[in-house]
């Protein structure tokens, strides 16, 4: 059997592709396990198991190697019982199994105080903020982007200012947003809007400009005029690429979420993360961060799957 798979190995089989995709997750996980479970890899600290004669040692305490050895030598010279310990990682690097169990317990742990929220409630708040920020941005950004990409006058009238505005970091508007919109959800949605909208207009306009010009020429020779040209040729001609842009832009919106949620009253997943970090529940912090990743990835996979269904003429490209 021939095994040549094309220049740059692009011809790998679907099964091999899937295996590689799984491996891309297993590799970092393996590295994490290595650092966590193999005692002589890293482990810069010592977890005290028996305090012995050291007055300030307690069981479960983490101390540096050098400190531990010094104290052990001191008490040994004094003829007192020696302390014992095992190599350990800092508290901010929990082992995979701790994070895995936190993943479960984070959902089942009752909030400490009555006014605090469950994790799933925090997550839901975040999702709503993202959703409204992105929907509002798209409601204005997509039409404006398409118009700017289609008509030179609209492009020249809007894009220079937008180009300037997109360099202003969205979080810089935090205080302003709170002053105008209050401390609850509205300023957070505004930050996501500001972070997404200006990029969105430029990205959508650029994609719209890439429409195959001969399609437009074919359409005008068939009698298409301005409005029908826009709605029957330009938009359907670029819609699949716009869809891809939107998937990427949605990823950017998530990155603005964390900053947005720190504005005014801290809420949502960010509140959960900062709260857990304050209690040094780093396993919970990791669980929450991974949860954002999983949410993002599943949304994207779902949108990809949905795209293949709404745009049947694009299916061949995915196979190719």
């Amino acid at each position: 059997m021939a095994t040549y798979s094309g220049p740059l190995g692009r011809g790998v089989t679907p099964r091999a592709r899937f295996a590689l995709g799984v491996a891309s997750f297993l590799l970092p996980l393996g590295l994490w396990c290595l650092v966590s479970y193999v005692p002589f890899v890293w482990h810069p600290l010592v977890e005290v198991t028996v305090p012995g004669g050291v007055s300030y040692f307690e069981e479960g305490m983490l101390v540096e190697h050098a400190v531990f050895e010094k104290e052990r030598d001191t008490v040994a010279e004094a003829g007192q019982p020696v302390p014992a310990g095992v190599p350990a990682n800092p508290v901010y690097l929990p082992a995979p199994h701790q994070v895995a169990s936190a993943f479960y317990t984070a959902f089942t742990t009752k909030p400490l105080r009555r006014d605090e929220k469950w994790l799933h409630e925090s997550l839901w708040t975040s999702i709503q903020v993202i959703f409204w920020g992105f929907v509002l941005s798209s409601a204005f950004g997509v039409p404006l982007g398409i118009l700017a990409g289609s008509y030179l006058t609209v492009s020249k009238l809007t894009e220079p200012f937008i180009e300037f505005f997109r360099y202003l970091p969205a979080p810089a508007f935090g205080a302003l947003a709170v002053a105008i919109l209050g401390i609850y959800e509205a300023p957070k949605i505004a930050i996501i809007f500001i972070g997404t909208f200006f990029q969105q207009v430029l990205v959508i306009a650029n994609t719209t400009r890439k429409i195959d010009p001969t399609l437009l020429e074919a359409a005008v020779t068939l009698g298409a005029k301005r409005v029908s040209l826009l709605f029957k040729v330009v938009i359907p001609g670029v819609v699949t690429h716009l869809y891809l842009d939107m998937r990427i832009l949605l990823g950017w919106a998530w990155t603005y979420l964390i900053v947005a949620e720190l504005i005014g009253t801290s809420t949502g997943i960010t509140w959960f993360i900062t709260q857990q970090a304050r209690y040094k529940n780093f396993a919970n912090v990791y669980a929450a961060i991974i949860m954002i990743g999983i949410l993002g990835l599943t949304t994207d996979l779902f949108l990809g799957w949905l795209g293949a269904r709404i745009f049947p003429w694009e299916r061949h490209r995915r196979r190719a």
Partner: protein
Amino acid sequence: MNRIALPSHLDQSEAVRDRFGRLKKRPVILDVQSLQKEFESNAGRTVALQNISFQTHRREFLCVIGPSGCGKSTLIRILAGLEPQTGGQVLIDGKPVNGPGRDRGMVFQGYSLFPWRTVKKNVMFGLEMSGKEGSVAESEALQWIDLVGLSKFANSYPHELSGGMKQRVAIARALANQPRILLMDEPFGALDAQTRSKMQQHLLEIWKNIDITVVFITHDLDEAIYLADRILVLKAHPGEIQELIEVPVPQPRSPDQFLSPEYLATKMRLEQLIHPPEEGVEVNGDHLNMMRMVHVDDAVSDVM
């Protein structure tokens, strides 16, 4: 080299002369009057087309041929209204052309089908633009799809079709608008030889059966002779009309005529016009700098 003796391309049989006589009495559909096209570029002004004048009669098949850079694509784009001319005018049925319009259908080399529309929807596009109702447009579109023999593929998407089939859809789409004139810009240039010859026969069939005048751009001499009533030969730098040849090969055409004396005479004339014998050895440095790269002791030291 001995050449076989050929008649002149100007010799026409009685039937052919009679046909051209009748053709020229038909109403003029396309009237091009001293058309001029200049481009501004960094290197200064370039004249792409200079003083182009010709007339095309109803249901005539005109081929435009010329070396690369003669502006034949520019010419057809001006006829389609996709580019403005810098001088002269183009009349369709006596009315000057100003921008693209439904009276001129265009078929592009790259098919330019709408990939998001099925074959049927592609053909319906022009009908929708003219405000025809869905069911009327659909039944009309299906007739045109039937004409190009693609009824089985009415609900397929363009990416599921071969190149020849795509170009048939593009022809049906252009014809569905029932234009006065069909402009074709090297439509079969991207097809393989076999598909191309089939498409030429299809096109002649379609042309015979409907009321359509065709202006067909090509750089393939055989294609031009096989298809055309008359061939407009352009020359390059600047693009000017060199000759308007009345093809003496009798109609209806068939591939059997490829070796007929009239056919070969026309081909010889076109060869003379398009590939004139080069004067001097070095025309513009466009030659290979060859030296022998084969070992003298090589077993196969010479291909002769």
